[in-house]
Every structure is written in structure tokens, then in C-alpha cells.
């Protein structure tokens, strides 16, 4: 069987097949029953006509049988009436044929053996189907002799066939109509029955897309446990990412305070080779901790996401940067697509935007521009492009590639080199995106980051 993915399509196809089978059988049975009953009625009629013929036959003076010129059944006398009669003697010589058969050869079929009657289906030359009945009789003459005769009648089946065809047509019409109504009602019922399934499906995709935190709890009994378990799963996925983040955060915090203490003690010492070496190690440890803390946690791509309206987050960030860079007081021009959301962790978005804007504020002369627009190709996961430009000195071509290398090579990086762009590259990569550096029309660097491209 061809695999069909939709439950309702499967049900409709199965029901249609069953309906075709059962209704087909019913039509066949009803049709043949009707036909048999019809044919029996035809035979009875023919029998009656034959009896009337026999009753009308009279022997003449020569002792031969003769038919009266007018019969009680007028159709025998009307040309082409569809009812034919004939009388033949023993030598198959036609004694009488009805006037209705004038100019038409009616083959009455097989001659019956003496005392027998035969029904047969015959056809006229023009193709008209007939049913014929012949009876072989021994006519007892006045003399007491027995003389054999065969009486035959035949009747056209045209009207019967027309009746049968009409009946069949009605059968098909009614059963067809009933089948359609049944399929329609079944699909209606299915819609109702499958509604919760569709609802759970759309809610799950909402959760995936970050538009919803969990599944609702108003599902029918059969689905409520599924929804409950799904919610537990979503919750534990989210909790896991959060726990991981908190553990890392606490670890970083508890490592950095002692580092700060060591450095504090060191600063008050007379500078020597030893203090410089320790200082370098502090810087290196600090970089490791910072980097590991900032790159995104192993998050669940399916259920960890929340649709974060970036406008509010950005306002806080830009206000904060205005405070920090109050002396330079750069203009931070924010161009935001309406209602744009970031599908992911809010921390990751702030880390991306924060590092990019912070770098730009550091490098710029007076102007920083941030543009956030949806990726036109990005559907579903809500891809976006974050572009940060400044009017600073820019980044020379040959310096670009090393800045964008993924993963900070800790043993190679010089202390204090800064981990901003490495962090941005890693976060973008964890959202399937990339970072590119080019020249801005403002005169400085233009850094373009994509996240969640499809």
C-alpha cells in the first residue's frame, strides 16, 4: 500500500474502498434479483398470451386448426406492436402468424418436443430482443384423432430492458449519493476527532518556534498524557540549559574573585619577572573562563528557544552603552525591523549585540549604526541579520580572517587580545549563522552576523 501520511486521508481512502466494495455487491445482488423477478413476470405474461391463443383456436371443417381473424388481444393485430404469435403444424408448416408479424421473420426458437414448452430468447433481424414461448400440443379432433400443433408467442423485451436500465440507474444514483453523503459525514466527524491532534501539532510547532512556552492542558483524555509528558520533556530541556548556564556562571564567578585577589596582591608588589609571569597566567586563565562562559551552552535547538522581542533588550543595551561611553558620546543609530524577534536565549542575543556594539563604540569616532532585519529566506525559525557599522579606522583585509576563526585558540592568543569577535562567531555558528567583515559606508568596519538561516 502507498504510504499515506495523514490519518484522515488514510481513513477516507479505507472507507471509500469499503463503500465501493459493499455498495457494489449490493448493486449486483439487487440488480440480478430485480432482473429475475422481471423475467418471471415476462414469462407469466407470455404464458397467458399463449393460453389465450390456444383458447381462440378452432378446428375447421377439414379438421385443421384455424385462428379467428380478430383476437381478444389487439396487439396481435397491430403491426410492429412487439407481441407476435404463430401456429405451426407437425411438419413445421405455418398455419397462422399474427398480423403484427407481417413482413417480419420471427424465429421462435427451438421446437419443443411433444407435450413440452420451451422459453427462449431470440432476436429479430433488426436486433430487437424478444422472449419466446412455444408449446407443443396434441389437438384432439372431433373425430377423436390427435393432431400435433405448436403454438408460439414472442414479446419484445425492449420495455423490460428499459425498465431494468432505469432501475439500475436509480440504484447507482442512490447508492452513489449515499456513499458521497457518508464520506462527507465521515470526513466531518474526522475533522472533529482529529482537531485535538491538529491542535497539539500546531502547539508543538509554536513551542519549537518559540511562540509558546508549553502545551496547553485542555486535550482529551487520550492525548492529555502525551501533552503532559511533552511538557515535562520541554521543561527538563529548558531546565538543563539553564542549570548548565548557572553552573558555569557560578564556576566563573568563584574562579574570578580569587583571580582578582591574586592580581590585587600582585599590583601592590614591586614589579619583577615573577609578578609579570604570574600576571600573564592570570590573564590567560581569565580569558579561558570568560570565553567558556560566553559561548552558548549546549542548548536544545528544538525546545530551548523563546521568541525574544529584541526592541526592549536593545534599548537597555544602548542606554547602558551610552552611560559607559559618555565621554566619547557616540551616536548609536538603531534601525530595527518592526516586531522582529530573536529565536533563542536572550543571553545569546545580548552577547551578540553587546560585543558588536561595544567593539564599535570603542573603535568609532562618533557614529555607530545597528541594523537588524529579517533574513528574507528565513522562515519558521525567524532568521535575522545583525549589522553593526562604525566610522572608525576599519579592519584591514588581512586582519579579518583571524578575527573570525571559530573557537579561541587559547595557547596562541596574546593576553588582552580580546575575545569579543571570537565569541560572536561562536554564538552565530551555534545558531547556524556566519559573521562577515567588510567596509562600512560610514568609513569604518561593517560586521554582519546572520542567525537562524534556514
Amino acid at each position, binding site marked *: 500500500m502507498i504510504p499515506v501520511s495523514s490519518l484522515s486521508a488514510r481513513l477516507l481512502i479505507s472507507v471509500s474502498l469499503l463503500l465501493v466494495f459493499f455498495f457494489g455487491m449490493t448493486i449486483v445482488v439487487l440488480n440480478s434479483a430485480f432482473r429475475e423477478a422481471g423475467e418471471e413476470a415476462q414469462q407469466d405474461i407470455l404464458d397467458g398470451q399463449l393460453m389465450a391463443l390456444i383458447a381462440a383456436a378452432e378446428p375447421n371443417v377439414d379438421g385443421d386448426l384455424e385462428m379467428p381473424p380478430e383476437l381478444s388481444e389487439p396487439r396481435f393485430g397491430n403491426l410492429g406492436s412487439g407481441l407476435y404469435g404463430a401456429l405451426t403444424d407437425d411438419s413445421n408448416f405455418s398455419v397462422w402468424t399474427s398480423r403484427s408479424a407481417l413482413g417480419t421473420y420471427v424465429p421462435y426458437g427451438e421446437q419443443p418436443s411433444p407435450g413440452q414448452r420451451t422459453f427462449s430468447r431470440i432476436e429479430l433481424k433488426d436486433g430487437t430482443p424478444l422472449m419466446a414461448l412455444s408449446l407443443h400440443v396434441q389437438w384432439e379432433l372431433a373425430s377423436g384423432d390427435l393432431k400435433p400443433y405448436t403454438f408460439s408467442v414472442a414479446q419484445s423485451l425492449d420495455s423490460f430492458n428499459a425498465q431494468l436500465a432505469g432501475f439500475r440507474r436509480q440504484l447507482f444514483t442512490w447508492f452513489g449519493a449515499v456513499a458521497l453523503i457518508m464520506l462527507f459525514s465521515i470526513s466531518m466527524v474526522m475533522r472533529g476527532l482529529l482537531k485535538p491532534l491538529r491542535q497539539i501539532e500546531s502547539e508543538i510547532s509554536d513551542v519549537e518556534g518559540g511562540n509558546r512556552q508549553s502545551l496547553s492542558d485542555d486535550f482529551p483524555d487520550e492525548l492529555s498524557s502525551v501533552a503532559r509528558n511533552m511538557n515535562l520533556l520541554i521543561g527538563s530541556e529548558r531546565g538543563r540549559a539553564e542549570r548548565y548556564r548557572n553552573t558555569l556562571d557560578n564556576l566563573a564567578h568563584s574562579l*574570578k574573585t580569587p583571580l*582578582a*585577589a591574586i592580581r*590585587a596582591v600582585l599590583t601592590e608588589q614591586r614589579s619583577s619577572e615573577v609578578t609579570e609571569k604570574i600576571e600573564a597566567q592570570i590573564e590567560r586563565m*581569565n580569558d579561558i573562563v570568560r570565553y567558556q562562559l560566553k559561548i552558548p551552552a549546549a542548548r536544545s535547538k528544538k525546545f530551548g528557544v523563546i521568541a525574544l522581542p529584541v526592541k526592549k533588550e536593545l534599548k537597555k543595551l544602548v542606554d547602558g552603552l551610552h*552611560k*559607559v561611553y559618555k565621554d566619547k558620546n557616540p551616536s548609536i543609530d538603531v534601525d530595527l525591523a518592526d516586531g522582529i524577534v530573536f529565536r533563542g536565549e536572550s543571553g545569546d542575543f545580548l552577547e551578540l549585540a*553587546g560585543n558588536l556594539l561595544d567593539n564599535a563604540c570603542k573603535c568609532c569616532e562618533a557614529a555607530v549604526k545597528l541594523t537588524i532585519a529579517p533574513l528574507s529566506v528565513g522562515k519558521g525559525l525567524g532568521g535575522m541579520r545583525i549589522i553593526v557599522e562604525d566610522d572608525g579606522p576599519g579592519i584591514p583585509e588581512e586582519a579579518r580572517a583571524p578575527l573570525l576563526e571559530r573557537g579561541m585558540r587559547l595557547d596562541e592568543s596574546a593576553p588582552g587580545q580580546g575575545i569579543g569577535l571570537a565569541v560572536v562567531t561562536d554564538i552565530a555558528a551555534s545558531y547556524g549563522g556566519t559573521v562577515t567583515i567588510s567596509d562600512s559606508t560610514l568609513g569604518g568596519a561593517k560586521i554582519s552576523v546572520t542567525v537562524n538561516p534556514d
Partner: protein
Amino acid sequence: MRLLVIEDDETVRESLCRQLAAAGFGIEQAADGKEGLYFGREYPIDLAIVDLGLPEMSGLEVIRELRAKGKAYPILILTARDRWEDKVDGLDAGADDYVVKPFHYEEVSARVNALLRRSGGWATSILSAGPVSLDTTRQELKVNDAEVELTSYEYRIIEHLMMRAGEVISKSDLTDRLYDQDFERDSNVIEVFIGRLRKKIDPDNTIKPIETLRGRGYRFALERNQTE
């Protein structure tokens, strides 16, 4: 200038306070959030350095509380958590700048000086008014481009007056900022310092940089020079 340092790690706090004190700041210190909030509310403070991860009461809460109580002095955050999320939260709560641990002392002192200068309405680290200019990073005073030698107490007073140039500074305010709380306070000392400063800056009594407002205090009277 009086600074409040709220930091729970003893080594970090004491080292920072020692170095700031050596640079001429008066220091209050607190080891937890509640104590810090008390100092921040009750003492005359020019700037607070607040660690975010504090016992008793988090640094964020301390900052919010201080701002809610109308305290407008600059606040510098010390934080071990340098995700932007944490920085933005701190700045949003009312802090003005942050320094990430483990920090270099020079970084803290540079930020402190910048914040103090800014809170006095100065855009650059060189406060310049008429012929007088004070380089707050080098702690140098020049009059008509000639350097004037100052003692550390004299420097603290002229810095405080110039930072708030145009404002009236009460004698008790100057005393508060001049001494750590344990010192014996003698208001005459201020008058002596002011007299010495006047002589050093304006030996001919022509510029008249410091005004005395009887019963109210002192004011640095020269117009600030517009930068740029």
C-alpha cells in the same frame, strides 16, 4: 573625594582601598550589601564601587535601593559575571560603568576619575577654568601653563572645588571629604588650606579663583573654559 567600596572578598577590597587611599581618596568600606547600603545612604559619598555578588543583599539591589533613595552619585560596578546580560542589568539598575574582575587597579582608578569628573559636569580629564587647569589623571595643577606644586591635602581640596566649579561647597563637606572618619576634625584646617591654595594659585590676588561665602562655604568662581 570620598569613595565607598562594597566588596566581600577581603583581599580584593583591602588592596583596592589601600591603593585608592594612596591616590588621595577618602574611603568607606563595607563587606556586605546591607552594610554597604547603610554607608551609601548615611555617609557623604562622591562615588560608590559595588561588587555585584555580595552576601546579605546583592549588588544590584544595593544599587536600586540607593537610586530609589535619591542618591545620584556615580556607581561603578565590579563584577565577575561579564556576560552582557549581567552588565546591562547592572547599568539598567542605575550603575554608570562597570569593571570586570579580575581587574587592574589602573582600570578602576581611570573609571573612577572619569565618573567623578563627569558627575561634576566636566567632559575631559583636564579641568580648565580661566588660566587655571587641573589634570586629574596626573594630579597636576597649572596656572597660565606654569605648574603649581601642591600637597596631597591641597590637591584634594582644589580638585573637589574645581570638580564642582560654580557650586557652593560647605566647610563641613570639605572636611568630610578631606579626612577619614577617625581623624580629628578641625574646621580651621580648611581655612588654612584655602588660604595656602589662594596664595599658590593667585599670588598677586588678580584671578580670585576661590570665593568665600560667609557662613555657607567656598566656591570655585572662575568660568569653565569651553572645550572644543
